[in-house]
């Protein structure tokens, strides 16, 4: 068992689930488009690094900018649509982005993906090995976690909670709701771009099948099981879901059956959590 690899995946999914939590847990909009932004982040970083020969950090900045621009679409959805319809629109957006990544062969390589992605080079020191990437991922994860740690103490969050719990109340206090949703969506998209770029440079190969609807469902699973609207819930959910395949791997069955067994466990947990503990294990807020 490769512990450094597991640690790295935990860090990526912590970033992803915390960003998803910012949209879902604080503004109450359940989005299925997270894997789309994850994929866009990975692809934009890769394409900029390979085609323009940029270093990792400038490409990451470009990916973040690109994701923030694309997240305007989600903001546009959120200003016009409510719960079920918003979720559906993001689901459709996810499928559209996947379809573009998978079929636009000239740019994204289609089903062959992009290989030989250059590694990260920090001031002349080229990262190699899982351990180095785990440290880089830990650095970014620490930034994201501390951002949310301090973010929770700001009055801004209480306003977001107000929007989530009673939108009409927030409107009647004279708050511009679209503006706050816009900020949440952009910040989440920016953080997800970081996760995507980490994934790309770590694997040095990406293809569109890593960013399917199932990935989005997994991220939503993570924030639902841990509980939304706080810090510990998404972190717990991310670590739990990264660890779980390592446990099911111990059961002696062949790999396709193992994959379905994993999905069976995921979906059972999802159904049971929604049924018996709708606010998750640590959550304060439940979707009602």
């Amino acid at each position, binding site marked *: 068992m490769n512990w450094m690899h597991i640690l790295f995946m935990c860090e990526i999914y912590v970033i992803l689930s915390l960003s998803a939590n910012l949209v879902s847990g604080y503004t109450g909009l*359940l989005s299925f488009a997270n894997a789309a932004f994850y994929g866009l982040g990975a692809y934009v970083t890769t394409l900029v690094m390979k085609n323009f020969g940029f270093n990792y950090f400038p490409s990451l900045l470009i990916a973040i900018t690109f994701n923030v621009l694309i997240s305007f679409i989600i903001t*546009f*959805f959120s200003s*016009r*649509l409510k*719960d*079920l*319809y*918003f*979720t*559906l*629109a993001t*689901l*459709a*957006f996810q*499928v*559209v982005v996947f*379809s*573009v990544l*998978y*079929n636009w062969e000239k740019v994204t390589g289609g089903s062959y993906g992009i290989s030989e992605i250059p590694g990260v080079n920090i001031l002349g020191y080229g990262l190699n090995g899982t351990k180095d990437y785990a440290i880089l991922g830990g650095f970014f994860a620490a930034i994201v976690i501390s951002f949310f740690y301090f973010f929770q103490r700001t009055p801004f969050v209480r306003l977001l909670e107000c929007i989530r719990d009673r939108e009409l109340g927030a409107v009647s206090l004279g708050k511009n709701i679209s503006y706050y949703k816009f900020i949440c969506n952009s910040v989440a998209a920016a953080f997800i771009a970081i996760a995507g770029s980490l994934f790309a440079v770590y694997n040095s190969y990406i293809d569109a099948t890593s960013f399917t*609807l199932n990935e989005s*469902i997994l991220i*939503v699973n993570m924030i*639902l099981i841990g509980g939304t609207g706080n810090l510990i819930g998404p972190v717990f959910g991310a670590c739990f879901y990264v660890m779980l395949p390592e446990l099911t791997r111990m059961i002696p069955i062949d790999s*396709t*059956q193992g994959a*379905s*067994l994993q*999905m*069976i466990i*995921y*979906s*059972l947990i*999802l*159904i049971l959590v*929604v*049924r018996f503990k*709708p606010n998750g294990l640590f959550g304060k807020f439940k*979707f*009602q």
Partner: protein
Amino acid sequence: MSFQILVYSITSALLLSLVAIGFNLIFNATKVFHLAHGAMYVSAVYAMYEFNRLFKQTLPDWISVALSIILSLLLLSVLIVVIEYLVYRPLYRKKVNSAISLISSLGVYMLVVNLLTFFFGNESISLNNNFKIVVSNDYFKLTEIELLQSIICIVLISVVILFSKTKFYTHIRAITDNYQVAEKFGVNVQRTRIIALIAGTVLVGIAGIMKGYEIAIEPNVGLTIVLTASVAVIIGGVNSLKGTILACFAIALIENYSVKFLSAQWKDLLTYTLLIGVLVFYKQGLISVKQRIETR
């Protein structure tokens, strides 16, 4: 060539409308965005396949097929009632919002599909596809199964449209409007929900079996089909069965004719872009019933 596309669009639109009508009934009666509908579509094919394999050795061919169809539809009905009791009814009692019921329906979908792949493997299965071509001329070809599909679909759709004139359908509409008031006026909400679920599931099961006779089905196709059907339901207006059927025809025509201009791999993109467009600009659907502004 283009006439062939028209014929093919019509048959696929008829099949799609069975799925979409079932979805519409369930969505109106239970307010659950029933993604597990796609799982029902696939499990119908698997049940049919297994039953038919079981009976084929001992019984004559047509009895075996008929018996398997009846038994698989029965099995699906039992399955949907179990799902209703274990998952949907508790959520209905808790009065959760529609996004949460969407998630639990997604959970049910993933559970059923992965149970299927766990036990029967990931390969696609086909019921039987050596059908003769009945009509063949310069303009188009029509196989036996396509003809059979169209006839059965037209019969079932007419039955559903007749059914929509009955009192039971009025109950469904009452529940859609406001289930608490409907309950006060003596509508048995639980029973109506179960009947609507069973009716929708039987429709989707028949559609699945007929598609399984035409092409090979693999466990993961269900989600695309149910999402396409839901696009049709939303485009046609949630309250209108006729709108749903019209929208099915529109979608099938767009999807199949787009193959002439774009390659087939962009079909998904087109359908979902259509969904986004409709959600953002015509959330009420193209054909809609007048509603109070605050209930929209």
